[in-house]
């Protein structure tokens, strides 16, 4: 079923998505916020430019954007998948606790800030291009993968993983970044690579890429350095 977002409000869009039992294609989307907020099991295709907080609290639905995302895509999402076929803005996957986000292009600042995991709930973000500064800031769990498919000299910005105390950040190819002392950077092991192979396969299937082009190169893996914890960083307590 296809509907045009022209002349209807963001609230109307979400009411419609909630009551519909089939795949919905939204056209003429322009800045409407909170699309698919908290949505469960169904598929939403979006043409245009969805507004901030797309798929916030997403709870199982698949949201496929044929364009760019703005800020706070997948804010606090719990389950499901968000696909952005263009680029995304800042704070994508903020406080994400489950589900998967795939971005074909670049992403902005603070990607995956405050991401967390618990038992089987393990959120994943894969960015095809580069990410801005503060990637994985305060990260507590989950996986972030930066593929840098255009081989930019800077796959990430400054302050990557600042305050990170859980989870892993994978970066494909050369990594020219100064990392905070509490973050450890190693060459990804075979086990590490095995752990992300499934996500890379999904990424290549979604965007029609050759999986070998994603796995041929080496990956760096960033994780919290347990030998250098954050004790007494802010206070003496």
């Amino acid at each position: 079923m296809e509907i045009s977002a022209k002349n209807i409000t963001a609230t109307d869009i979400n009411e419609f998505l909630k009551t519909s039992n089939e795949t919905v294609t939204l056209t003429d989307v322009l800045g409407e916020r909170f699309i698919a907020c908290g949505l469960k099991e169904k598929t939403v295709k979006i043409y245009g430019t969805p507004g901030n907080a797309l798929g916030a609290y997403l709870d199982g639905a698949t949201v496929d954007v044929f364009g760019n995302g703005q800020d706070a895509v997948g804010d606090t999402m719990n389950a499901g998948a968000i696909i952005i076929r263009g680029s995304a803005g800042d704070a994508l996957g903020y406080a994400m606790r489950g589900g998967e986000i795939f971005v074909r292009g670049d992403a902005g600042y603070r990607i995956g800030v405050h991401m967390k995991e618990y038992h089987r709930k393990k959120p994943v973000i894969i960015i095809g291009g580069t990410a801005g500064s503060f990637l994985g800031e305060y990260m507590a769990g989950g996986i972030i993968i930066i593929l840098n498919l255009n081989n930019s000299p800077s796959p990430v910005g400054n302050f990557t993983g600042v305050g990170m105390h859980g989870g892993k950040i994978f970066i494909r190819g050369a990594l020219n970044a100064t990392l905070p002392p509490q973050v450890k950077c190693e060459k990804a092991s075979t086990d590490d690579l095995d752990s992300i192979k499934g996500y890379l396969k999904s990424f290549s299937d979604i965007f029609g890429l050759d999986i070998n082009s994603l796995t041929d190169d080496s990956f760096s893996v960033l994780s919290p350095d347990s030998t250098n914890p954050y004790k007494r960083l802010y206070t003496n307590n």
Partner: protein
Amino acid sequence: MLEGQFRNPSGCAISAIFDKSGKRFSGDAIISSISVMHERSNGLGGGFACYGIYPEYKDYYAFHIFYDSVQSKRDCEDYLEDLYDIVNLSKIPTRKIKEITDEPLIMRYFVAPLKTKLDSFQLGEEEYVSRSVFHINTHIKGAYIFSSGKNMGIFKAVGYPEDVGRFYMLENYEGYCFTAHGRYPTNTPGWWGGAHPFGLLSLSVVHNGEISSYDANRSAMETYGYKCTLLTDTEVITYIIDYLTRKKGLTFSEAATVMAAPFWQTIERAEKKERERLTYLRNIFASQLVTGPFSILVGFDGGIMALNDRLKLRSLVAAEKGSRVYIASEECAIRKVEPSPDKIIYPKGGEPVIYTLEAQQ
């Protein structure tokens, strides 16, 4: 309580359209662009800065003035006549709409400094004009000059920006650059003068954010003779840019480096020459460092600059299509007026995006 008697934090929407070739276009487009971000404002302030709109008076300063009363108009005009040759004065045309109420008297004057007065003043024309603007805004009760540049004008009011644009009939103006602002002040009744853009001479600033260095910046700027009458952070940002570019001769790019200076740890990693340059700018202009979240659009004669705070705590997107440049808080505001841009640009924190007219390059 009136604006200026206490501080008001605000969230906001900003948007701009600039044509590098200098080709003029109608104010319709900027209204359309800013209207998409309606939720970012709360109806307590909207405004526009428009460049290239007064070509027939391009050698004269265009003063846009709010008056509370006929008396304040009389007082202000007496003062102006003493210092300026007023070649044209008129009410700024407005449209009566129900969304915009309680308007003050809004006048426009095209003026040139009186030669004898200017000669005896000895500090140059721009300083002459800027000092008289400060004098009126601080000493003449009920008069407020909110626009004082050449071949440009600021139009602002209490209301949503799209309504403010219709109120001032911006469709009747043609310029090569427009900036727009939708305001979301959270603790204030809102006053017409407190809406954005803020301007001084041909400089204008629209701002989304909340700077935490306000008082440090304000006290520094007041020692240089700037009077911050409204207690809003945007006013002090405007004066900082005027001070750095007009009085100190910095380029807009250097001014951006001063206001959104890199962290010392980032400076330490730079190449020697760049490290020395950055260290020099941070040390000399330490009081002009602006901290806290901001994204601003700075209009100036023949150009525009967009700048984020160094942590990029506010959103900002730019796009190009042919000779047109678009910059806004959200991409949807660009797509509304240009559905298929050639290129989308995501400015980095503290790194300015600057465009100037091709004829001036």
